[in-house]
């Protein structure tokens, strides 16, 4: 899948994988790859500007955590973030249904 198609959904995707459990950037990138079957061609570095945006919007919080001999920034959802996940799932269902009715009906 082209990166520019995914970019507009990156915030919602990150929130959705954070809904599973808190995690650091690399862990979140792995979850995105695993859950999409490796189909999303997003540059991994673009997760960090997105995480910064989500944190600024109060949807995630982060803190340093020491483990495996290294300090890592762990991200977790706030209650506003959990509400945003719910809303974006509903929005996605409506959006994908509408797109599918147009693009999915061709031969």
């Amino acid at each position, binding site marked *: 899948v082209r990166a520019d198609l995914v970019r507009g959904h990156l915030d919602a995707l990150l929130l959705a994988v954070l809904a599973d459990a808190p995690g*650091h*950037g*690399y862990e979140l*990138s792995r979850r995105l790859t695993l859950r999409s079957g490796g189909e999303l061609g997003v*540059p*991994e*570095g*673009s997760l*960090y*500007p997105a995480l*910064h*945006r989500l944190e*600024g919007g109060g949807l995630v919080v982060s803190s340093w955590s020491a483990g495996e001999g*290294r*300090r*890592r*920034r762990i991200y977790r959802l706030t209650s506003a973030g959990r509400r945003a996940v719910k809303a974006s799932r509903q929005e996605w269902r409506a959006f994908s249904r509408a797109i599918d009715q147009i693009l999915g009906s061709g031969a």
Partner: protein
Amino acid sequence: MSAVDRYVAELDAALHVRGAVRRRFLHECRDHLADAAAEHGQEHAVRAFGRPSEIAAAFDAEVAARRGVRSTFVSVAGVPRRLDGSAAVAVRPPLEDLGQLIRVPIPSVDIRRLLVVTTCVAAAGAFVRDRAEHATLSQALVTAGIEAVAVVACFLLLGRALGLYGSLRARLGATRGGSSGILG
């Protein structure tokens, strides 16, 4: 120098943002690349991370957007606090810094004048916008009126939030007391 070190150096050079936010970003990127390199090798790790110039530009843009919102709020919050006349200035309006930087005196504005100008500009903007969208004259006037009321309400709420009215009342009380002493 390893591929990861080279990549982080390029990212570092491409970034414009400074301070703690930059250090944290670079720290996280280096961590990510170290994890990815351990799992897939250094070349794959840096390739999957994206071009350093694009990642740096995206991060710079995010930080600038956040700082832009904050600085607008600080400007708006700082001006009435200063125009209150009290010595306690919570935040220094950025215009002061600009004035010092370019060495051009920027006059301070009276809060009542600022309120009138802001209200007029907002109302005129709403009127022009409505007319451009083919609203009737009366509709455009109503919209302009609503806009003006909204601006005044914002000023009042902001003044209350900043505790502006307490000191204004105190100053008015002092003035009235002084007047009655002279006129009475």
